[in-house]
Each structure stands twice: as C-alpha cells, then as structure tokens.
C-alpha cells in the first residue's frame, strides 16, 4: 500500500484561511454554549450535553486542525482505535464496578470505617459479641 505513495512528490495540502477561522469561530461559540447550558439544571443530562458538545469540538479539532478529514484514512483508524479501546476499558470495568451487588446487596458500611487498623479508638475490648451481632443484622440479603 505504500507503493502508490512512493512516486508522489511531497506537496503540502493547504486549506483556505476561511476554513481555519470558521472552525475557530465554531469552537468559541460551542464553548460559550456549553458553559451557559451548565448553569441550567438538567439533572443528569447536564454532563451528557456537556460531553456531546465536547465531542463535537474535539471532532472539529481532529478533522480540520489535525487534517484527519483530508489525510490518509489510516491515521483516522489509528485515532479511532484509541477511542475504541478506551471505551472497552471503561465499559468492561464498569461492568464490574456498577454490578457488584447483583446477587447479594450488603448494605452495611464498608469494613474500613470501623476496622482496627484505621481507627483504633472505634472498637473497645468489650464490644465483640455486639459488633458481631450488628454486622449480621446489617447484612441483609435482597
């Protein structure tokens, strides 16, 4: 595949000035928009909108400033590979961290709060049977 390239001379691909200035204007406008939206309470949707706007901005930078739109597609593939594998990393990790209580939801506080190594004053020598009882009652199954 490099063969087709070998006989080409190295003439630069020059974009018109307006393309750069137009992209810059779009980026500034989108920044203003995303900041203004953040002052409106949309509940959980705020972060979604903010990330959607950021993605459009990043796409503009990548496609125009970094010439992905005009350059050889292998560069676009490389860049998208980064996004795909990052998504895999986040997705499969969340599959664990978000689904840990699937079979048993233990609603007691995490151990470290009253474990001896972290807080030696929290446990006194006489509380062992009581502590055992309380963990049992707190650990209810759903």
């Amino acid at each position, binding site marked *: 595949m490099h063969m087709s390239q070998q006989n080409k001379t190295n003439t630069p691909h020059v974009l018109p000035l307006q393309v750069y200035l137009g992209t810059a204007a779009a980026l500034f406008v989108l*920044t203003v928009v995303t900041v203004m939206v953040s002052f409106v309470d949309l509940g959980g949707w705020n972060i979604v909108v903010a990330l959607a706007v950021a993605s459009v901005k990043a796409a503009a*930078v990548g496609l125009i400033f970094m010439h992905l739109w005009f350059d050889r597609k292998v560069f676009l593939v490389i860049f998208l590979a980064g996004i795909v594998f990052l998504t895999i*990393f986040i997705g499969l990790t969340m599959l664990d961290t978000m689904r840990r209580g699937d079979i048993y939801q233990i609603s007691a506080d995490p151990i470290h709060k009253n474990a001896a190594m972290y807080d030696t004053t929290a446990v006194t020598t006489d509380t062992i049977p009581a502590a055992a009882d309380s963990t049992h009652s707190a650990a209810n199954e759903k």
Partner: protein
Amino acid sequence: MDGHEHSAHPAHLAHHFSEPAQQAESAKMGMWLFLLTEVLLFGGLFVAYTVFPAWNPDMFFNAHKHLNVYLGTLNTFVLISSSVTMALAIRSIQLDRRDVSIRYLVVTLLLAAAFLVVKYFEYSHKIHLGQLPGKFYTFTGIEGTNPHVFFSVYFAMTGLHGVHVLAGMSVIGWVLMRTRRGELSSEYYTPMEMTGLYWHLVDMIWIFLFPLLYLIG
C-alpha cells in the same frame, strides 16, 4: 549515519528512506501512534473519573462547585486560540511565509504560557484552601463520601495535562528556533507538522477535561 553520503538526496532525507514522501508519511504515522498512546495514558485517568463519580455522584457534584468555571472557561478560550495559531503557523510555512509562521508560533507560545499562569492561580487558591488530593486534603466544606478523591482526580488529570503543556511549549520553542534558522520550508516542515499534531491533542484533551471537571451540573 546521515543523509549526506547520498548526494542526490535532500539534506533532510535519512539514508534508509528512498523518498521524502515516504519519510514524511512515516513520521506522521509514528506521530499518530504516539498520540494513540497519549489517549490511552490519559485513558486510565478517565476510567478513574468514570468509576468514582458513578459511586459517589453527590460528592462529585458538591466538590466540582469549588472549581472556578470562569477561569476554566478562560483557559478553554486560551488553549483553543493557541490551537488555531498553531494551525495557522503550519499553513504559513506550507505557503513559505516564514516570517508569518514565526509570529504565529510566538503567539502560540505566549498563549500556552497564559494557560499555565491561569492554572497557577487556580492551583494556588486550592492549595491555600487545603483542597488537595488524598491525605493532604484539609478542606472541610464539602459534603459526601471521600471528597479528597475528587481533588485527587482533578490534580492528576490537570497535572498530567499541565506537564503535557510544558512539554509542548519546549517542542514549540525548538520548532521556532529551527524555523528562524531557515531549516523548515514548504518542502520540509515535518517537525512543525508533528508539533502541531501533538499540540492539537493537548487541546483536545482539555476540551474533555473542562466539562468533566467544571461543568458536571
């Protein structure tokens, strides 16, 4: 090991390449692969960012209010502007307008420095308040579980990004010197093009850091 032994080759063509185009394309591909590693390097921090807000949404919401949206917005403008000037510097060298290109590079450097100055003010304010990562966290005004984790993530992400800005500045400075010495032209401007790609990626990462840290809700 340089290209001068082959008299037919241009000075910038290394001995093991047969054509300038092959060399330029190789450099660009190498750079894109390097950017790919950068994406995944930051990727680890993005995973941490996803997991902890999902566990403690309220804490993240409460903590993010202690960031200054106006300074964040200002810095976004600064960094996007520097990206624009970088792109224009490359466009100018492509057209052999060397003096214009040098001017754009200087502006890019100044904007990058401005970004770090703003960041410095943000950081020193947080340090003053004790809004610091991990065990150095002494601030008490944030409700929720483990607010120090928010600042760990904040400082890790912006800190790593800041290091990249610094690295970018030194590379831009180096390209600036080479342009002034007349080593770059429309025939050969690979170093500037590579620097541009890197700088745009630094900008792109900030484009995501800004909403994730400053605009949660």
